[in-house]
C-alpha cells in the first residue's frame, strides 16, 4: 500500500500569529515538504493544480514535480488533481510524458474536474460541460499515449490529423491514471471503464458517502472485466493532526480548524472529526481510525494525507510528516499488509506496468527522422523560404 501526502498549496494566514506566508515562501515550503516526505519514507507526494489566489499550487504541476524529482530518489510524484476539463489534453499528454522521462517513471496523475467555477470561463470552457469535457478530454489523452499516430475529432478542441504526441511515454507505458471525484458517479464509471484507479477525496465527507462511491466503482470495474471488484484500485484522502498527547494535538490544532478555509466557522472540531476522516489526537488514534477505512471501502491501495493547509507553519508541517513517517505509516503498512488477501493487487507503478506490458518498448529510429510536415530533417535548414 502506498502512503503519502497531498497539497492544495493554499496561502493561508496563520490564525495564531496573523502571519501570512509570501507566495515564494509557500512555494519553497512545498518543496521542503515533499523532500521531507521522501526522507521519512513516505511513498507519494501529490500537488494540486490552481489558477487563482490564494493558492500557489502550480498551474502546470509537472514544473514542480520535475523540480522535486531532481532532488529525490524514490518518491512517487502525483497530482491532486490535474484539471482534465480546462487543460488541453494534447498538452497534458506532452507535459506528463516529459516529466515521466525526467522522473524515470516516478510519476502518475489524478484527473479532476476542479471546483473553482470561474476556471472554466477563464479557459474558454463552460462549467455545465464539466462531465462531458472530462469524458472527451480523457478519451483523447488516453489515445495520445497509446497510439503513435492519432486522428481525432471531438466537440471541445480543434481536430487532429495524423498527430503524434511527443515524447512518447517512457518505455512505451503511459503513467498510471487515477480519477478523482467526490460526488459524480460518472467519474467512478469512467475510472472503472478504463480500469484506471479511483480516488475518493473524502476529507470533507462522511464515510457513508465514500462507501457508496467506492462500491459503485468496484462493481463497475468488475463489470468491465478488469478483475474482481476487490481488485479495483482505490485511493482515499485523509486529514490528521498529531501530538504525543491527544489533548495537546486538540489544543494546538483548534485555532487552525476554527479558521480553516472550507469548514472554518462551521461545525465544531468534535463534530467534524466524528463525521469526516479528520483525526486530531495521538498517533495511535490516527492508526486506529485509518485502519478502520478498510471496513468502509475494503482493501485499498493509496492513502494520501492533507497535512499542510489552514496556515500551519512549515516547522509544524515537517513535524507532522515526521510523526507520520516514524510512528503512523510503518504500523499502518504492516497492519494493512497482514490483512490484505494475496489476490488484491498493489497500486500499479511504472515498473509493474512495464512488466505487465511484457517489457519496455522504446521507439528506436533506424533511419534519419524526417519531419512529416516539412519533409526536412532536424539538422536541415528549416527556415521557411519566401515564395
Amino acid at each position: 500500500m502506498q502512503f503519502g501526502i497531498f497539497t492544495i498549496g493554499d496561502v493561508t494566514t496563520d490564525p495564531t500569529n496573523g502571519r501570512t506566508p509570501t507566495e515564494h515562501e509557500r512555494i519553497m515550503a512545498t518543496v521542503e515538504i515533499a523532500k521531507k516526505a521522501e526522507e521519512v519514507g513516505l511513498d507519494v507526494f501529490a500537488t494540486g493544480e490552481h489558477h487563482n489566489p490564494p493558492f500557489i499550487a502550480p498551474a502546470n504541476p509537472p514544473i514542480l514535480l520535475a523540480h522535486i524529482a531532481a532532488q529525490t530518489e524514490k518518491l512517487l510524484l502525483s497530482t491532486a488533481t490535474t484539471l482534465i476539463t480546462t487543460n488541453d489534453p494534447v498538452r497534458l499528454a506532452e507535459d506528463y510524458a516529459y516529466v515521466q522521462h525526467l522522473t524515470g517513471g516516478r510519476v502518475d496523475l489524478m484527473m479532476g474536474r476542479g471546483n473553482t467555477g470561474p476556471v472554466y470561463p477563464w479557459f474558454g470552457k463552460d462549467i455545465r460541460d464539466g462531465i462531458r469535457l472530462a469524458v472527451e478530454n480523457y478519451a483523447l489523452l488516453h489515445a495520445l499515449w497509446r497510439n503513435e499516430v492519432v486522428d481525432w475529432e471531438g466537440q471541445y478542441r480543434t481536430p487532429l490529423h495524423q498527430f503524434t504526441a511527443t515524447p512518447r511515454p517512457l518505455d512505451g507505458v503511459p503513467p498510471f491514471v487515477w480519477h478523482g471525484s467526490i460526488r459524480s458517479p460518472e467519474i467512478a464509471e469512467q475510472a472503472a471503464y478504463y480500469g484506471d484507479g479511483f480516488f475518493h477525496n473524502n476529507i470533507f465527507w462522511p464515510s457513508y458517502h465514500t462507501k457508496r462511491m467506492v462500491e459503485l466503482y468496484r462493481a463497475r470495474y468488475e463489470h468491465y472485466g478488469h478483475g474482481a471488484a476487490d481488485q479495483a484500485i482505490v485511493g482515499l484522502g485523509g486529514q490528521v493532526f498529531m501530538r504525543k498527547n491527544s489533548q495537546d494535538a486538540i489544543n494546538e490544532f483548534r485555532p487552525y480548524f476554527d479558521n480553516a478555509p472550507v469548514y472554518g466557522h462551521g461545525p465544531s472540531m468534535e463534530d467534524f472529526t466524528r463525521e469526516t476522516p479528520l483525526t486530531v489526537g495521538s498517533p495511535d488514534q490516527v492508526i486506529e481510525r485509518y485502519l478502520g477505512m478498510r471496513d468502509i471501502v475494503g482493501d485499498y491501495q493509496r492513502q494520501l494525507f492533507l497535512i499542510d493547509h489552514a496556515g500551519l507553519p512549515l516547522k509544524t508541517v515537517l513535524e507532522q510528516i515526521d510523526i507520520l513517517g516514524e510512528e503512523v505509516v510503518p504500523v499502518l503498512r504492516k497492519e494493512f499488509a497482514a490483512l490484505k488477501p494475496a489476490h488484491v493487487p498493489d497500486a500499479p507503478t511504472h515498473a509493474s506496468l512495464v512488466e505487465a506490458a511484457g517489457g519496455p518498448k522504446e521507439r528506436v529510429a533506424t533511419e534519419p527522422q524526417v519531419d512529416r510536415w516539412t519533409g526536412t530533417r532536424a539538422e536541415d535548414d528549416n527556415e521557411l523560404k519566401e515564395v
Partner: protein
Amino acid sequence: MRNIIAISGGLSTPSSSRTLAEDLGREAVESLRSRGEQAAVELVELRDHAHAIMDNMLTGFPTGEFAELMERLVEADAIIVVTPTFSAGISGLVKSFFDVVEKEKLEGMPVLMAATGGTERHSLVIEYAMRPLFAYLKAIPVGTGVYAATSDFGGEGAAALRGRVQRAATELADVVAGAPRRVKQDDFVDFETLLRRSA
C-alpha cells in the same frame, strides 16, 4: 399510508407558525381520509436543526438526525411549509433549509405553502417569495397559500383562516391522492452512453 412532513420555521414557544403547521397537517390527513387514504404527519421545527442546517451550508453534507430528516423529506408524499415573515420575506432559516436540500430531490413534491406574520399586510409573501422558490425546485405548490396574521388566530379573521386552511388542505389532498409522487432516483449513465454524448 401517505407521509406528510410539516415544516415550521417558527422560533418561539408557543409559535404561531407551528400552530398553523399542525392545523394544516391535521386538515390534510382529514382530507385524505375522506378520499380513502391513510396519512400521517411528522411535524418538524427547523429551530431544532438550526446548527445542523448551517453546518450543512458550510460543509456541504448533512449530519446526524438532520441527515435522517433529509432522507425522510425526499421520500415524503407531500410537505407543508410554514415560514414566519421576516423583513418582508421568507425567514433565513427556512430559506437556508431549502438551500441545503439537494437540488432535484424535491421535483414533483406536492407542497402546501403557508406563512405567518404580525400583520396581514405581508400576505403576498407567499406569492412573491415562496411560490418562486418551489417553482424553481420543480415542486408542485398547490394554488392556495395560507397566510395567517396574528389577528387571524381569533375574532373575525379566525373563521376566514379556517376556510383557507381547509381549502388548501383539500387541494393538497387532491394532488397527493390523484397522482402519487414518484421519488426521483439517481440516474446512472453507463460509460458508452457518456462517450456518445460527448462525441
